[in-house]
C-alpha cells in the first residue's frame, strides 16, 4: 500500500509540474512580438554544421543592421530585438526551431528562413501563421510559379545567373559559336542552374561539348574535370558550392585547363580565391550584390561600419552577410512603412508595395508585386584577382535578355 501511495504522489507532482509550465505558455498578446517599445524579429539559419559558414553570417547581418537601427532610436520608438535559432540544416529541426520562435519567443516577423530546402519545409508553417518572412536565397522552386503569400526574397535565380554569364560571353565578349561545358552539383540547386543553361543553349543555339555533375560530399572530381578537358570547350559554366569550386579550380590548374570558368553568385567567396591561389585567376562569377572591397558604395560603407562595431574576426564581410543585410534592410523598410500601428498584415503589404527600393548601391533596385516576391535584381560579372584576394567587376549592372519568367 505504501508503494502505491508513493508512486501516486510522484505521479501527481509530475502532473503539477506539467501544468505549472503551462501557465507560462498561455499568454495573451495582441500582435505577437510587438509592444510599445519592442519588436521581436527571429532568424532561422544553420549555426552549426557544414552550412554554418553561410548561416552564421546570415544571423549576424540581421543582428548588426537592427543594432544600428536601435542606435538611431529604433522604429517609431520601438527597439528591435533579434533572436536567432539554429536549424542544423535539417527540416524537422528547422520546423521545431521556427515553432519555438513563433510560439515561445513570439517573434513578429522572420528575417531569415534559411536555405532552400529549409524554406520549402517551413513554408506551410509560415503561411499558416501568417508570419512575414525573408528568404536569404532566391530559389526558383519556392517563388515560381506562384509565390507564398508571406515569404519574400530578392535576386536572380541560379538559372538567371547562368544565363547572365552566357549572355556575357555572347554579347560582351562577342564570341562566335563558343563551345560550352557545364558542371553542376546534382541536387535542386545545381539543377536550377542547369535549367538556365539548357534554356540559353536552346534560345541561342549553342554548342555544348560536355556536361558533368558531382554529388554533394564528393571528395574527388578529377574524372569529371578530365572529361571536360578532353571535350576541349572554350568556356566552362558551373553551378557548384564553394568547396567544389575550389576543388575544380585546383584540378583545372593541375590538368592545364585554362579556359575561363563562370560560376553563380553563391560561390563568390573570398575564400575561393584564398584557398585556390593563382588557380583562381580564370574564375568569374555572376554577382548581384556589391563587393566588400567596393567601399565607395554608400550602402557598403555603412554595412562595414555597422559590422565593425561588433569587432568581428574576419575583417571582410562574407557574401552571405551582405545578402542577409539587404534582407534586413527590406524588412526594416517594411516595418517603417507599415506605420506606428504595427501588425503582421500591414508589414506584409508594406513589403509587397515596395517599388524601386534602393539599397544604396548594395544591390540593384528592388520592386515587389503580388505575383512577384522574388524580383530579379541587377547583376554584374566579377572576376577573381588572386593578387588582391578580391573580386573585381568587369561589366556594368544589368539584367538578362532572356527572361524565363512567364510574366
Amino acid at each position, binding site marked *: 500500500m505504501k508503494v502505491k501511495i508513493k508512486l501516486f504522489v510522484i505521479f501527481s507532482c509530475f502532473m503539477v509540474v506539467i501544468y505549472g509550465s503551462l501557465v507560462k505558455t498561455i499568454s495573451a498578446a495582441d500582435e505577437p512580438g510587438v509592444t510599445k517599445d519592442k519588436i521581436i524579429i527571429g532568424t532561422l539559419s544553420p549555426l*552549426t*554544421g*557544414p*552550412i*554554418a*559558414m553561410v548561416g*552564421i553570417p546570415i544571423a549576424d547581418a540581421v543582428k548588426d543592421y537592427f543594432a544600428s537601427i536601435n542606435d538611431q532610436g529604433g522604429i517609431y520608438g520601438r527597439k528591435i530585438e533579434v533572436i536567432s535559432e539554429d536549424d542544423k540544416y535539417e527540416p524537422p529541426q528547422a520546423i521545431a526551431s521556427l515553432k519555438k520562435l513563433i510560439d515561445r519567443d513570439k517573434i513578429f516577423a522572420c528575417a531569415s528562413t534559411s536555405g532552400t530546402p529549409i524554406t520549402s519545409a517551413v513554408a506551410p508553417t509560415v503561411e499558416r501563421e501568417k508570419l512575414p518572412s525573408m528568404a536569404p536565397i532566391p530559389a526558383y522552386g519556392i517563388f515560381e510559379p506562384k509565390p507564398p503569400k508571406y515569404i519574400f526574397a530578392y535576386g536572380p535565380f541560379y538559372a538567371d545567373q547562368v544565363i547572365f554569364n552566357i549572355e556575357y560571353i555572347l554579347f560582351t565578349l562577342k564570341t562566335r559559336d563558343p563551345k560550352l561545358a557545364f558542371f553542376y552539383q*546534382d541536387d535542386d540547386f545545381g539543377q536550377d542552374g542547369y535549367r538556365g543553361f539548357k534554356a540559353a543553349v536552346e534560345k541561342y543555339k549553342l554548342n555544348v561539348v*560536355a*556536361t*558533368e*555533375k*558531382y*554529388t554533394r*560530399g*564528393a*571528395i*574527388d572530381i*578529377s*574524372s*569529371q574535370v*578530365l*572529361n571536360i578537358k*578532353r571535350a576541349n570547350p572554350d568556356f566552362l559554366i558551373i553551378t557548384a558550392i*564553394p*568547396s567544389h569550386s*575550389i*576543388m575544380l579550380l*585546383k584540378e583545372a*590548374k*593541375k*590538368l*592545364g585547363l585554362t579556359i575561363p570558368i563562370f560560376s553563380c553568385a553563391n560561390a563568390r*567567396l573570398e*575564400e*575561393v580565391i*584564398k*584557398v585556390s*591561389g593563382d588557380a583562381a585567376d580564370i574564375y568569374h562569377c555572376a554577382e548581384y550584390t556589391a563587393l566588400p572591397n567596393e567601399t565607395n558604395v554608400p550602402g557598403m560603407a555603412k554595412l562595414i561600419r555597422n559590422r565593425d562595431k561588433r569587432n568581428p*574576426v*574576419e575583417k571582410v564581410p*562574407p557574401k552571405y552577410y551582405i545578402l542577409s543585410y539587404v534582407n534586413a534592410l527590406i524588412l526594416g523598410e517594411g516595418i517603417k512603412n507599415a506605420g506606428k500601428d504595427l501588425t503582421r498584415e500591414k508589414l506584409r503589404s508594406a513589403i509587397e508595395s515596395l517599388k524601386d527600393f534602393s539599397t544604396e548601391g548594395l544591390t540593384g533596385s528592388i520592386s515587389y508585386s503580388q505575383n512577384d516576391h522574388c524580383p530579379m535584381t541587377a547583376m554584374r560579372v566579377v572576376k577573381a584577382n588572386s593578387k588582391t584576394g578580391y573580386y573585381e567587376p568587369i561589366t556594368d549592372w544589368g539584367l538578362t535578355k532572356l527572361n524565363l519568367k512567364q510574366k
Partner: protein
Amino acid sequence: MISEGIGNFLQLVLSGLAVGSVYAIVALGFVIIYKATDVFNFAQGELMTLGAFICYFFIVQLHIPTIWAFLLTFVTTALIGMITEELFFKPLVGEPIFSVIMVTVGLSIFLKGVVGLLWGYMIKKFPAFVSENPISFAGIVISPVHLATIIITGILIVIFALFFKFSVMGIAMRAVANDQDASLLMGISVRRIFGLSWAISAIVASIGGILLSSITILHPSSSFVGIKVFPAVVLGGLDSIPGAILGGIIIGVVENLAGGYIDPLVGGGVKEITAFVILIMIMMIRPFGLFGKEEIERV
C-alpha cells in the same frame, strides 16, 4: 609520348590512386579499432577532421615549423585517442555492442561541436607542405600533394605490415583481436592494447585528415568522407588491415575509371554510386571481402 587514350587512362588511375589512398587511410584507422576492440567507430571521420584542425592550429596559429607540427599533432591526437578510450570505452567493456556503437555516435556529435566551436565554419586553406605546382611526365599530370598521399599510404602499408608481423606490440594486438580471454591468460594487458589501438587509429586518422584537407579544403564538413569507409572495409574484409587499404585504393580507382568512361555515356551519376554497387556485389558474392576470414560460428 604515350597515346591520348592510354594517357587518359593513366591519368584517371593516378587520380584514383590518390583518392583511394585517402579512403584507405580512413578505412585503416577504422579497421584497427574494430580488429582490436570490436568497436564500430562512427566517429572516425570526426577524428580525421580534428587531427587536421589540430595540425592547422600548430602550423598557422602557433607558427611551429611543419615537421614538428606534424609530430606534435600525432602525439596530441594519440593522447586524445587514449583518453577517449579510457574515459568512454573502458567502462563499456562487456556491455552490448550496440551501446558501444551509440557512444561512438555521441562522440562524433561531440567532436563536431568541439571543432565548430574552436575553429568555426569558414573555409580554410590547409598550409601546403609540398609544392603546389603540378608535376608532369609523359603527358600525365599529378599534383605533388596527390603523389605525397599515395607515397604516404604506401609507407603506412609497409609500416603496419611490419608492425603487426614482427613487433611485440603488434602481435599482442593481433592476439587480443583474435581472442581476448586467451590473451588475458597469456599475460597481455588487454586494457593497454585497447588504449594503444585507439591511439594508433587516432594518429592514422589525423594523417588522413591532413592529406584530405590538403587535397580539398580544411572545413568541418570533411568528416563526411567517413561514409566511404563501409564499401572499402567490406571489399577488403572487415578484419583485415591490408584488406582495408587495398579496398580503399580499389574503390578510388574504379570510381574514377567509372567517372571517366561510363559517366559520359549515361550523362553522369554513375561515379558516386560506384562504391555502393561494389559494396552490394561483394556482399552477394563474397561477403567477407577479399582478405577477410569467413566467420565460422561455433555452437
